[in-house]
């Protein structure tokens, strides 16, 4: 099979992994090979589905011995199969990189033979790039759950980021749809990554010369959760997310809305999870990581799923009206972060500016704050929200109508406005 054909098959097979980030690891040019990384991440192109193309994201092979129902590459699926040699992946990465198409490589694989064997293959590619070609670009390797601790350590020495995919939020979901995957095995791998990284970071901190201490996965680890393939609620998903962030210091969790694929299993939903659900989960995830919200604040036992029609921050605000109005000229950072319509960057700007002069609504507008959303919740020099807070129809007044889903239109099952 020609490399081009393999590329088509193995890129297609990798597209269900949402991650394509190349940020989080600074790497200077080394003078002997191509590549550096400024830590910010660069999207070299965007696909027609609006996603960033930053890395050459491929599978080494889509042969797999596992039978995860939600995965297009499961053993019982009759998709076309292909397998790259490690050298082919090395050559492709370098050729694309030299033409400024990509920031680096994101290499994953079906499970062939054993987790250890698969992990070794991935390490071979990354090591060849780093050691033979002095490649300084970004490398993201899939950490194969169940691979030995020694291999995880080797992988972290050559990769910028490692990720072990959880895929499904509960053990029960995994039993149903991914009989070969076990939550404790995946978490064991995450914990190995966490410990190696903590150790390496500690060594670098105490070392007299940082250059002599080898780094371990400087961009940390991430994982992916598939949303909408099982009936698990957002509450359960966010609980899993909090647990993972808390215990393994994950940089990011990717939420990938389940999308139907050729030869899917009858146990799967026929229709994709609404994109907006994925979007709400990302918003909730940001609220947990940057806005000081706890996962359990965002859903309730009666409403275990995020409201699809509005931002989870707004949902929280409408349920906690006693918290408002917030005076933008007096409130602390923590309090202001909870105001719908004010992002964390603007909170910082407001704190800076109000040291020189108090802010009016017009000043907020200059900061590109959406006044319609924010006025019911804030007090400024020229406005107080006290009267509007109890007004009728507040949710309708502040909610931005959602965009129609393109996909729904495509299958003729348009639901119109969500």
């Amino acid at each position, binding site marked *: 099979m020609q490399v081009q054909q393999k590329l088509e098959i193995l890129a297609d097979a990798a597209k269900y992994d949402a991650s394509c980030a190349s940020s989080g690891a600074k790497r200077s040019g080394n003078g002997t090979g191509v590549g550096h990384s400024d830590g910010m991440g660069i999207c070299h192109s965007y696909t*027609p589905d609006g996603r960033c193309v930053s890395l050459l994201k491929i599978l080494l092979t889509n042969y797999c011995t596992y039978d995860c129902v939600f995965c297009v590459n499961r053993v019982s699926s009759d998709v076309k199969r292909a397998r790259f040699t490690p050298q082919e992946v090395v050559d492709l990465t370098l050729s694309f990189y030299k033409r400024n198409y990509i920031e680096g490589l994101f290499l994953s694989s079906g499970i062939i033979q054993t987790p250890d064997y698969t992990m070794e293959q991935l390490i071979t590619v990354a090591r060849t790039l780093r050691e033979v070609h002095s490649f300084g670009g970004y490398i993201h390797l899939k950490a194969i759950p169940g691979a030995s601790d020694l291999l995880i350590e080797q992988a972290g020495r050559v990769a910028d980021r490692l990720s072990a995919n959880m895929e499904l939020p509960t053990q029960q979901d995994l039993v149903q749809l991914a009989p070969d995957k076990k939550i404790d095995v995946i978490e064991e791998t995450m914990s190995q990554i966490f410990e190696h990284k903590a150790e390496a970071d500690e060594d670098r901190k105490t070392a007299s010369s940082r250059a002599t201490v080898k780094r371990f996965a400087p961009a940390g680890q991430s994982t992916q959760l598939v949303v909408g393939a099982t009936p698990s609620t957002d509450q359960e998903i966010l609980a899993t997310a909090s647990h993972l962030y808390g215990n393994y210091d994950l940089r990011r969790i990717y939420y990938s809305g389940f999308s139907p694929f050729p030869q899917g299993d009858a146990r799967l939903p026929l229709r994709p999870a609404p994109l907006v659900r994925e979007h709400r989960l990302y918003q909730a995830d940001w609220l947990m990581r940057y806005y000081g919200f706890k996962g359990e604040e965002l859903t309730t036992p009666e409403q275990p799923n995020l409201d699809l029609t509005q931002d989870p921050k707004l949902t929280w605000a409408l349920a906690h009206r006693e918290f408002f109005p917030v005076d933008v000229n007096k409130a602390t950072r923590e309090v202001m972060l909870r105001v719908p319509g004010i992002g964390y960057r603007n909170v910082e700007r407001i704190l800076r500016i109000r040291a020189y002069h108090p802010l009016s609504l017009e000043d907020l507008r200059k900061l590109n704050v959406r006044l319609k959303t924010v006025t019911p919740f804030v007090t400024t020099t020229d406005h107080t929200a006290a009267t509007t807070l109890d007004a009728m129809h507040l949710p309708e007044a502040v909610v931005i109508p959602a965009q129609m889903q393109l996909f729904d239109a495509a299958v003729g099952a348009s639901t119109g406005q969500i």
Partner: protein
Amino acid sequence: MSLGLAYRVRIEPSFSAWREEARLLLRQGIAPDQVELVSTEQDHAMTFGFAPAPAPDPALAIQKPSVPKAFFELAEIVCCHKDPDRWQLLYRVLWRVQHERSLLLNELDEDVARMRRMDQQVRRDLHKMHAFLRFRMVSTPEDPEEHYISWYRPDHRILELAVPFFAERFAVMQWTILTDYASASWDPQSRAVTWGPGVPRSEAPPEDELEGMWRSYYSSIFNPARLNTRAMKAEMPVRYWANLPELNILPQLLAGAESRVGVMMQQQSSLSANTYVPNDHTLPVLRDAIPRCEGCELYKPATQAVFGVGLAHAPIMLVGEQPGDMEDVEGKPFVGPAGKVLDQIIAELGFDRDTMYVTNAVKHFKFVQRGKRRIHESPNLKEIGACRPWLLAELDAVQPQVVVCLGASAAKSLLGAKFALMKDRGKIVESPYAPRVVATIHPSAVLRAEGETKQVLYNYIRQDLALAAQTAGLAG
């Protein structure tokens, strides 16, 4: 300040040229409203109406201007903006900073806001240049050395700002970046840049053969079910597209996406009996509905669908593979030679088949025609999966204590594709669909076996059925 009357200073488009002029103006105490700083790029013909330099004002003169570091950092970026007014703006802010020390922190000030906006625009342009510039590899038989060349048009004058990024990243490559106003070449031996004049787009290098490979990659990585060209254009405005080799196949990709989704949906739905299985899981309703099933292709050549038979709430459910030649004609499971073997074992154990429920993992006969004979062919995993909803509905209706999988196909349906029959037969195992499952050999294996093996296999089935009966609480 009326046109033509102001004192005018012409600035070469570079930060150092502006800095020299600004320093002179500050030293003379010339306020920003007494002078007009214009760019030489825009000021070719406008040589009329110069006012003489205003008299230096010693009271306002600043000999040692104090300039915050933040101003320098901002100004170095802003001076690359193409706005002709930038030199004037920079001077005005510089002048004001002399008296208002914390001016730059006030983002609501009009001048500061404008400077920051320009700073952002230039930085964004720079980021896009790092992202969207594409090199083409050029090498000729005469000069086999690889030379990477790019033609790119930034919105602002940012080539100088952009070069350090490429110099660090591609230090070992020989490369050249051409723009319409300037060019830069990197030599990997001396590690130095040579600057040159701009060239038109027609000077861009010819297509690189690797672009075909890149297009293949680009076409394969998007999900056609999630088209969102609005998001795509927001991040990658159309003006950049001419430069991107992957974008010239966009129309085909968009046109193909809808049909790809259709195929995906159809393939997925056509491979399941799901839509044919009634919600009411009672045996008469199910039996009534199954003749209409077109959940996979097997219904076409088969005579009829063969549904399960037996006791409605039997403690034991036997699941075979699929109907055979005789079953297909008669419409009942296990009425052929394999059924005889099964009956014999059941009788030996002291039971009656009528007290059990007997069915198959796949409800239609799969075969290949050889002359007049129809030769049995095992169903594949896809077909087993497609038919599983019927089996699950039967399980739901009968609610047996124990399920016995006769053969690998039934075991695959309930215990997963990797279930190893010969290794794990004769054990009580848990399936996602039934709490207690025993897998054993299919009775037809006994028919095919020869010599001593025949009896061995026969005994296996007998032992495993006995285990199932015992587990279900039946006394033989």
